[in-house]
């Protein structure tokens, strides 16, 4: 009798543990069921006038020229020459930031920036044109080994400086203390937009030269002009920012921001509901839970970021090199079903090159049709009726792609294409993409970080596609893209780029856009005046957000 009881007990315990063990990051079904009908009656926070957010990974360094791991903090502690805003019509506009005005020369090559006067860095030094020169030259200084040097690749003298042929980048000249002229090697319609990106943040020469190795880590030297100051960093644990009361524009309202790191997905939700976090991106599994909660449903925010999910077609793969196979893959994927299952039916199916909210986005393209029979026909014409095997490369860290990849695998199967999923950790994944070997297709996300269509189109040029996974061989289309992108008149440029969309997507089937997902996030009730950035990033909200003290303990 005792033995029976013990074994029943053990079986129960094991079953519970199996449930809990199903995937570290997924929610337990029990958790959802139990919490579903819970009503939050008392929300309290211990965080005072500080907003608390999470960071996906430890940023490695706050020198944004040397890492792509985190843009959020650099966007708050540094400023750029120009900034982005969204006007009433919902369009993005370039506005002055550190540069209060600028002149562009007739030939479109030289941009003369007039800097605001009296802008202070966090160490008390005033912003001068020399700081701009220093910042740009640092990025392309070969001794610095900056991975984001390419931020300034349009500037004259870029390559020579990188090759060590010159001591300072030729294209940046200090005219006087508050005027700096940047000359490009060729006219570019996207230069200003590019200067809004986080890697174009302006540094203080004195701080960086004094700080040397400590720049990027030590708050004393890691200074910018931004509305937040970098206060401290406990590696792998947290980073604290505090309000810059001397900000050149309106200062922030909150006292500061705390970023917590290495928060596991299940822990994050618990902490958010407990009042320890002020914001959380809501995944599909959690959406139901929050929607059904009397208290939390009012704090959900839906938004459309300038991002999309899409599928890379690697033309180094023998099958994907054939345009008919590529068209067949396009036809075999039932994007409506993917939308229903993974985007709650609320995603916008895309048929072009751009995601919504990017200048040039339009919805007049030929829709990509889901047609399994057509797919089979195309394969037959290509002589590959039943022998196509494709490798789907999967990024282990992007867990949301995993179930979608499985669905894609079975959809391809129905068209007679055998697909296998190859999963890799994040670093190996990117290395494989860059090498172009060992995979046929891959599903992934992209979010624009500058409000300009150029990068989305130049993805498909021969030069760029050698590193980004596409490995495109068609020089003719590549040249057309470069030509269209180089047009200076914004309207002409957009029209020329748009004209190429049908060739890229339909005739050459260079890739498969899936959908732009309508995303949801949820905020703490103590946040007032909360506004996501134009990219859908929460870091930008910290400037104007206010915290309602009544929720604080």
């Amino acid at each position, binding site marked *: 009798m005792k033995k029976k009881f013990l074994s029943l007990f053990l079986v129960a315990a094991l079953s519970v543990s199996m449930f809990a063990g199903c995937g570290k990051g997924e929610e337990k079904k029990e958790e959802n069921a139990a919490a579903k009908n819970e009503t939050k009656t008392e929300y309290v926070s211990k965080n005072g006038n500080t907003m608390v957010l999470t960071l996906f990974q430890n940023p490695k360094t706050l020198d944004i020229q040397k890492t792509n791991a985190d843009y959020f903090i650099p966007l708050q502690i540094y400023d750029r020459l120009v900034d982005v805003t969204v006007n009433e019509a919902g369009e993005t506009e370039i506005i002055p930031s550190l540069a209060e005005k600028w002149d562009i020369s007739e030939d479109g090559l030289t941009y003369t920036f007039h800097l605001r006067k009296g802008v202070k860095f966090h160490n008390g030094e005033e912003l001068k044109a020399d700081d701009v020169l220093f910042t740009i030259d640092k990025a392309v200084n070969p001794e610095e080994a900056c991975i984001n040097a390419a931020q300034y690749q349009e500037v004259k003298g870029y390559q020579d400086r990188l090759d060590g042929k010159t001591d300072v980048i030729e294209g940046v000249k200090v005219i006087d203390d508050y005027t700096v002229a940047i000359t490009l090697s060729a006219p570019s319609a996207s230069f200003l937009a590019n200067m809004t990106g986080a890697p174009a943040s302006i540094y203080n020469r004195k701080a960086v030269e004094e700080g040397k190795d400590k720049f990027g880590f030590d708050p004393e030297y890691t200074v910018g002009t931004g509305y937040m100051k970098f206060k401290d960093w406990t590696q792998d644990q947290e980073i604290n920012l505090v309000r810059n009361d001397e900000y050149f524009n309106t200062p922030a309202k909150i006292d500061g921001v705390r970023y917590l790191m290495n928060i596991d997905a299940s822990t994050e939700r*618990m902490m958010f509901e*407990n009042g320890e976090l002020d914001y959380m991106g809501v995944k599909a599994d959690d959406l139901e839970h929050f929607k059904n909660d009397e208290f939390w449903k009012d704090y959900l925010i839906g938004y459309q970021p300038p991002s999309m999910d899409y599928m890379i077609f690697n033309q180094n793969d023998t099958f994907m090199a054939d345009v008919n196979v590529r068209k067949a893959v396009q036809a075999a994927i039932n994007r409506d079903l993917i939308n229903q299952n993974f985007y709650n039916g609320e995603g916008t199916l895309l048929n072009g090159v751009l995601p919504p909210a990017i200048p040039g986005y339009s919805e007049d393209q030929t829709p990509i049709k889901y047609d399994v029979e057509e797919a089979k026909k195309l394969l037959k014409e290509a002589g590959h009726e039943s022998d196509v095997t494709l490798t789907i490369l999967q990024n282990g860290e992007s867990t949301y792609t995993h179930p979608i990849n499985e669905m894609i695998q079975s959809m391809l199967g129905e068209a007679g294409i055998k697909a296998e999923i190859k999963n890799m950790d*994040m*670093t190996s994944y*990117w290395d494989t993409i*860059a090498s172009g070997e060992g995979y046929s297709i891959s599903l992934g996300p992209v979010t624009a970080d500058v409000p300009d269509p150029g990068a989305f189109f130049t993805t498909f040029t021969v030069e760029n596609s050698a590193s980004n996974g596409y490995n495109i061989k068609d020089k003719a289309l590549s040249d057309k893209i470069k030509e269209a992108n180089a047009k200076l008149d914004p309207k002409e440029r957009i029209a020329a780029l748009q004209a190429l969309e049908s060739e890229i997507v339909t005739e050459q089937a260079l890739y498969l856009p899936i959908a732009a997902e309508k995303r949801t996030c949820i905020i703490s009730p103590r946040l007032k005046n909360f506004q996501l950035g134009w990219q859908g990033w929460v870091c930008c909200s910290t400037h104007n957000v206010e915290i309602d003290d009544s929720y604080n303990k």
Partner: protein
Amino acid sequence: MRKYIAKRIAVSVPIILGVILITFVLMNYIPGNAVTAMMQNKINNETVARVEEEMHLNDPILVRFGLYIKDLLHGDLGTSFVMNQPVFNLIKNAFPNTIKLALSAIAFAWILGIPIGIISALKKNTCLDKLFMGVSLMGISMPTFSIGIILQYLIAYKLKWLPISGFTTPAHLILPSIVLGWSMAGEISRLIRTNLIDVIQADYITTAKAKGKSRMGIVIFHALKMSILPVITIMMMQFTSLLGGALITENIFSIPGIGTLSISALSNRDIPLLQGTIILSTFLIIIGNLIADIIYALADPRVHYD
């Protein structure tokens, strides 16, 4: 004895060197390197090639290995590729957290495990014994992540008795220690129970009884001393493996210890940092083994090392 210790330490040097060499070589065969990890989705082959040159990642393996060993002999663990700080500092900052966690987990395991083992042995086959052994078995067989998530959910989130994650106050130590300590306590209690049951049947226990010694006195001074000997080795091993970093627990509770450091070093292909953490773990395991053997020799006069 001193000669023995010296010999063991001398042998550990080639072991550590061998481990470093193997890691070094393996890291060069995994796809991706520090630059790839830094660039992530903005990856560009020319940039990667350029930065690799600038960071001297393309020098031949043996040259780099030689330079690494040279620095090592001077006590320099190198600089992290990615975090741009001396590896020694990074480890120095993370290690205390791991030590705190390890010590409190071990304390929990021993303080709970030993008495439970003793009580179970003395009350063999009663309900209490079966309950204790059942709980011990649960701790041993349930995977760390399920214990961790369940406890976190029930105790921190639902009951709000303890913080959910982080590592700033002593209260933050409690849940992770329980999570780690439960399975260790289980191992210890089961071992002690088995050993004690055997030992209690021994002749010298009857002798002690015949001398008029009290039951508690017999258990503590005669029986326990014998039963605990084999457990010492296990406990030492448990402790040193914890010092290498309890990855899953650190992840669930967001503890910035050696485990977290090693994982980010690996995913960033940060070779110097990874080597640093590996040297640390290897060294700890070797020392832990040595200490366990020494303690055993000191405790049991029948054991001789020459």
